[in-house]
């Protein structure tokens, strides 16, 4: 779940459109890693995680088609942590992921409104829908 915390930090700190897109892309990737680590049918979050992972991948791909996305990851390679963190239950992970999805949706909505170019706006709008969908799947409520 450390990835979630880092992803939130990057999203909050992103100031311009390329940085927001880069942070959003990485945030979706981080979510995918966490969903993968907690895919256990014995957990009550199984259905929500499986469906959310599909939306996270769709959101990442939507950003991929934004022209202003930097060609290379800003801030170095991602942490290689893709296992469930000891002491963190699936429910706790779900809460953390929902928080990230809410922040992601907010930043993407903002970018979709303010980006100067239409293709960037369209990519952000599509990714916003996916972030929103993840929040709904994890909490049952709109962000």
């Amino acid at each position, binding site marked *: 779940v450390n990835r979630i915390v880092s992803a939130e930090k990057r999203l909050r700190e992103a100031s311009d459109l390329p940085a927001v897109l880069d942070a959003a*892309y990485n945030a979706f990737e981080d979510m*995918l890693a966490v969903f993968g680590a907690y895919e256990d049918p014995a957990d009550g*979050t199984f259905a929500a995680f499986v469906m959310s992972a599909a939306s996270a991948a769709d959101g990442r791909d939507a950003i991929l*088609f934004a022209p202003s996305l930097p*060609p290379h990851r800003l801030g170095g390679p991602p942490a290689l942590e893709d296992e469930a963190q000891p002491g963190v239950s699936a429910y706790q992970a*779900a809460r953390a992921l929902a928080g990230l999805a809410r922040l992601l949706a907010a930043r993407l909505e903002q970018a979709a409104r303010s980006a100067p170019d239409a293709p960037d706006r369209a990519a952000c709008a599509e990714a916003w829908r996916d972030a929103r969908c993840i929040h709904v*799947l994890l909490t049952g409520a709109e962000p």
Partner: protein
Amino acid sequence: VTSQPTFGDFLQAAGRQLDTAGASMTTAANGDVDEVTQSLLRVVTVLDRYARDATFPFDEVAAADTPLLNAWARASLDARQALANAAALLRTRGVPGPQPGTPPATTLARHLDSAAVSLAAGRDLLQTHFAPGPRGGRQSRSDWAPAIGSPPVTRALLSELASLAQQVAAQGAALAWSPLPRTRGTREDRRSLGAACQWLDVFGATIQAAQQDEPTPDGDRELLHAIPLNALPPRRVPDGSEPVAGLCDGATGSALRARHAAWDAAVQATWSPGTSVTSLRRVAAASTLTSYHCEVLLRTLAARTPEAAENRAALLRAADAAGRARASWLSVANALKQVTTDTPGYVSPAAAEASNLALWTGRLAYASPEWTLVSGPAHPARAPHDLAPGTEDIPAVVAAIHHSCETLTQLTWADREQIRTAARAGRILVPTRSLPDNYDIPHPYAHAPLGRVDSLLGVYEAAGAANARTRDAVADIAEATCAPSRMLTAARAAARARPDDRLGVERVRSSGLPVQGKVPDLPGPVESTLRELGVTASDLLRRGAKIDRAGERLISAAVGEGQSLRRGQPGEQTRQRSAATAALINHALASGDSRAIALLRGQTQRQSEPPEREP
């Protein structure tokens, strides 16, 4: 379960009409021979269409080769000839028809008309599973199509039609030879009617003789009767008020819709926007959940089954298999995170139906009537005696699981085909950020490396196998519990009867004799290209097929004359390198022309020999 009309409905309706006509024969023998002749012609025309459907693989079998066919194949050809003779006799009378909308006055004629309508509707129902195919053939449009065209179902169909034909023959003959003074018709008319009825009787007797040689099992007749109309049941979403039986119906209907959509998706053109990674991911995620729900349902059914019962062990085995299928779908979902397509964002009908199926099976599996895919935390499973209060309630639940597992299996194959097709067209992409650093690509995405596509296809392959094993395990339970879905197993078994051995054509082919019927039925390179471009106009496709056939003939002729085939000649090297030429030669091989096969295969074998040592 889905209240779809079945072929049996129409066959039985025709039988009832003829039974009623037979019951009133003592009074019906007084009637108008002209009217009955015309009505009988309608029946014979429909029967003839059925017979043509059954015998089309033999259209181009030379008369001298027919002794090589098996008893059923010969009988079907003889039966078709008998029907043609009957029709010819009835047509020669040239009787004027009644005014449109005017029912005939003769009782027998009215019943024959009704029977003809029912039989025609039954044939229409069967045809809904096919679409016009290349070279005048037909192509499958549903998962029932292979069973309908299978030898067991064809034999059952001919047997049923033969029974009806003999019934009709007896009734027509009774009128034709009736001494009653009230029968209207000239002597010639009565003679033609009587002769036509004799040919109908020959049709029946011919099929009966084949049946004595190789009887039609009752199960095949049952399968024939169960063939449903190929139409989508309406899309439904659970509203929370459904009892378990309603949820079973809903899950089954949703499974049928998803199968239908999967079938359509698997045959999409390479450029179709329907192939999108979003759809593939939705299918994988939803199918992971559906597999899980099936596992939960099977364990719940096992829990309400006495420990000593044989079915309990089978249910637990099937539940374990469903667990493995769930894991395989999860692997697919994870593999799909690594790739994307050129048209993300599109949600296909198959993906929408797969999600709906997850919803229906979830409602069935969980106790909460409000459960949805976004319900979040865990929900307790439905109590065993709530799921199936009595043993009579078990088959419907098993059928819903069986249909779901069948659908999941077909979805794996359909999606694998989509990926294969999209990969061939270079439409499977990877984010360049996910590639190793030695890939220096100035774009955010690139064509997926071959290894990644192969790996993805391998994951689908494994999922297909895991889902098929679950389906087979549930099929055994369906058989044991007499669930209505057991017809799925029978249909698959019928379709597995060697597709080329349609009533014995294989014996002719294996004899080395040239059989150039429609058995290969593969579009050639020109026709394929037209289809891939989205051309659907039948005249254009026919012209493409003609060009392909002309190409086959040209290649055969050239090979026969030994043109450009000697090793080491530049012409051969060019031919070897050309994919287009390979397509043409493959098509010539598939044409079944024995001369082309012998010469081209011989050439291929020669080419694979080690090179000669230099002197």
